[in-house]
């Protein structure tokens, strides 16, 4: 509205013809016939994040299958929420790359804020934040991840760059719900 005195003729014509209203209708119609950006998660689709994504921790091995972690406890020092517990032990059977390995490497995911400082602090690149993000569960036990779980191979291999939507299957067994992604059938996201 202009604060000029008198009636603005152009403004009046616009109002009579409902131009603003029609413009609005055009916008919403455009959205109505455009494709939805919603992922049909968890039924059909699952978002595969990029490599840089910071999800649940992983502990890695070198190419010979030896654990990279030397239990130096630098990640424990770096952690701002002190959610990582490391107990070192001596081992010369070749389990690790050095004769010092972790007896316990435990992370409490309820306290973890996924800042990635442990990843930065790690001198051997043993700790990486992975791409798993489905952390909901009905039991407190699953919020604590141990060395054995973290050493398991990841469902999304490092070779996949991510940033894609994979076809997924939603299962609801009694042991807990699970969404498995089929990495062979993927597509780019809609927007």
């Amino acid at each position, binding site marked *: 509205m202009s604060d000029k005195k008198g009636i603005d003729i152009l403004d009046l014509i616009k109002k009579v013809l*409902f131009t603003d*209203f029609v413009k*609005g*209708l055009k*916008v*919403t*119609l455009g*959205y*109505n*016939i*455009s494709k*939805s*950006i*919603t992922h*049909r998660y968890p*039924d059909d689709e699952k978002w595969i994040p990029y490599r840089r994504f910071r999800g649940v921790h992983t502990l890695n091995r070198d190419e010979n299958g030896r654990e990279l972690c030397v239990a130096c406890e630098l990640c424990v020092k770096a952690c701002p929420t002190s959610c990582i517990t490391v107990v070192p032990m001596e081992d010369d059977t070749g389990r690790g790359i050095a004769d010092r390995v972790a007896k316990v490497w435990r992370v409490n995911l309820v306290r973890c804020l996924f800042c990635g400082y442990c990843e930065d602090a790690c001198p051997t690149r043993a700790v990486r934040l992975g791409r798993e993000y489905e952390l909901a569960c009905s039991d407190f036990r699953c919020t604590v991840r141990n060395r054995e779980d973290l050493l398991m191979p990841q469902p999304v291999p490092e070779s996949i760059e991510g940033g894609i939507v994979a076809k997924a299957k939603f299962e609801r067994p009694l042991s807990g719900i699970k969404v498995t992604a089929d990495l062979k059938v993927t597509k780019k996201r809609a927007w």
Partner: protein
Amino acid sequence: MMIPDISTILEVVLIAVKVVVVTMILFGLPLPLTWLERKVAGHIQVRLGPWRVGPHGLLQPFADMIKLLMKEDIVPDRADKFLFTIAPLLAMVPAFAVFVAIPFGENIVIPVINKEVSLYISDMNVGILYILAISGLGVYGIILGGWASNSKYSLIGGLRSSAQMISYEISISFAVIGVVMLSNSLSLVDIVRSQGGSLLQWNFFYLPVGPVWCAIFIIGSLAEINRIPFDLPEDEGTLGAGFHTEYSGMKFALFMLAEYVAMVSVSVLTVILFFGGWNSPVPLPIPIPPIFWFVAKVAFFIYFFMWVRFTLPRYRYDQLMTIGWKILIPVSLVTILITGFMRI
């Protein structure tokens, strides 16, 4: 006791069947309409809408229905129990009763028994007046329900509804008077017949006043059936849920039912009054049943009302009153005057 002859009995049975069929359709319609409304909302907001229950969420209304049936039926403490219980019915009955006078097509002949059947329950010669009168009664459900809830939000919702209804019913009636002047009849069948032929015979294209009537009628109707942008009686932003804040379960469902049936009736009326009812827009060589055109046009207007709902924000209450009293009523009076001069 006089025994009526067979044709009278048949007539009564026919009317009963028609009433049952129309009522069943009206009871069934809100189910797909709620689904459609949520789908339209979803897609306009670049979402998907209901998806999980059934293919494309088609069974979602049934899930909602079961939920509403199972919910506890709460009557607030110190509410007026009698009016609180009867209010949803008061809202619902007029919405259904409107359809008594609405014609859905010309008479058809049933091939086997060779009997002519009219596609309306009653063609009263005061049809449009009856519809305006009855649809105005629906507001009592809202007012009395709002008052009986013994809640400030409900009361304000009911008060707003009453003021809004009075303000907008006047301009709606004036818009309809124009149509009546044009077709020389209050009967809806005659109004549709007078628009037969082609697109240009439709009242909407009776220039220059046709589009103005139509705009006034649609705006006023939106206000009367409490849909966005005029849904102040159930203004979520300021009144909780307005007049049905205290309602739950089946009573709430009845209010929703009334709202959707009212939306259908307004779409039907818009089509009948301004867009030629069941007449086809252009003469076609292939015979398409008139009921197809009717349903298609009504479906378009139902979509249009949903489309508007997710396009416009809600008006403020003083803006609502300004639109009603300072714009719609003077404009509708002027259009009646112009129509009078054009009809001389």
